[in-house]
């Protein structure tokens, strides 16, 4: 049984800790901005494929930072949170806050990429491509990333010196999500009709829901100790 009240308490907790009392939320954004600027220095006028690949690399590593932060708390804070909510509620609440932070990172990176690297040059005859399917593809992909990453971040937080192992544990598990998300965003960027995008969006939603459901089942075993 998942209580909405508990989820709300986690969201309030995050809001108080990450946004009001410290500048924790700013760190992944700053990371994304730095990587984006680095890309703009290293590559000039990239092709759409390279542009998209750089954007996704920026997003993945910023999302890793975001997820790592979401499970970084002092033992005292964990003691308090664990009395407040059940393990499954904790995972769902943390996944929601990670997803929101990842969306923030995604939109920021997109804005900075279009500012510093410019919009990728598409063939002339394609005309005007609407922006919103591309943003939807990216956003769904960011949510899918955060649902896998929240679980691996929780796992890594149980290991001493676990921050280093986090990337190694996560990246192979992210490959299916990334392949679907990159394809969805590429099709959207190249102005494919929406009917070709729907299956890929469904795939992205599946890759957001499946790790979350699996994580919710496994999380009580992980958190017991």
């Amino acid at each position: 049984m998942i209580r909405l009240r508990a989820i709300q308490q986690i969201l309030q907790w995050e809001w108080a800790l990450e946004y009001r009392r410290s500048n924790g939320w700013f760190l992944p954004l700053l990371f994304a901005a730095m990587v984006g600027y680095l890309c703009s220095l290293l590559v000039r006028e990239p092709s759409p494929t390279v542009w998209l690949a750089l954007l996704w690399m920026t997003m993945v590593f910023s999302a890793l930072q975001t997820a790592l932060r979401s499970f970084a708390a002092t033992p005292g804070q964990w003691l308090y949170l664990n009395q407040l909510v059940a393990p499954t509620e904790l995972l769902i609440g943390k996944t929601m806050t990670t997803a929101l932070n990842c969306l923030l990172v995604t939109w920021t990176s997109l804005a900075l990429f279009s500012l510093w690297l410019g919009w990728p040059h598409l063939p002339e005859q394609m005309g005007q491509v609407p922006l919103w399917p591309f943003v939807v593809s990216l956003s769904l992909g960011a949510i899918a990333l955060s649902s896998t990453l929240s679980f691996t971040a929780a796992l890594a937080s149980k290991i001493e010196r676990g921050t280093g192992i986090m990337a190694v544990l996560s990246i192979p598990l992210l490959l299916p999500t990334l392949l679907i998300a990159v394809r969805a965003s590429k099709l959207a960027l190249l102005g494919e009709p929406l009917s070709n995008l729907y299956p890929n969006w469904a795939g992205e939603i599946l890759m957001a829901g499946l790790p979350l459901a699996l994580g919710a089942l496994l999380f009580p075993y992980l958190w017991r100790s």
Partner: protein
Amino acid sequence: MKAWKILGIALVGYSLFAGLTSDVPRLVILNETIRNLYFHVPMWFTMIALLGASLAYSLRLLRSGGDGEPLNLERDRQARAFAEVAMIFSLLGLFTGMVWAKATWGTYWTADPKLNGTAVTLLIYAAYFILRSSVDDAEKRARLAAVYNVFAFVLMIVFIGILPRMTDSLHPGNGGNPAFGSYDLDHGMRLVFYPAVVGWILMGWWIASLRVRLDRLTAQQTPS
């Protein structure tokens, strides 16, 4: 020696002999490399069977530690050993596949969905072993590794089972290329292929259970 071990030796021996000497269909491009079906494909069947066993042991480990009772660490040894041997078979499958790909596709490696699936499986289980080696406490290691094993197995199945069907591939069995579907596998080849699959699974099981025994004896000799 138990009967299933003798059966395993007999089936693998038969498939090695018959696989190299029996008649096979003459097909363009494939030519004699079609015999790789007897050696390459059983490796993947064995890998999946052993990984499935590893998953089952991980699930049983997680169910064992309830209500203050200690975790059953024997299940952890089994889960690890089966995953280890599965990775050996995965490497063997990869190498037999690469040799075949060089002969038919002209390259050792392409960005084919099947090859990506193999690469991701190897990476996932490499991470599983890294995870194990970075936790010192045996109970904690057993629990964390089991949780990761279950989580990773499901995502791996999504990757190797569902994604390849969404894209085209040069690999036999995809995009109209012949493989061991009901309509394009020669009857004579079936008589070698299925025994090879069963034989290699039995051999893999045997190797893994030896590994478990060795681990158990080592654990008894060095009391924690």
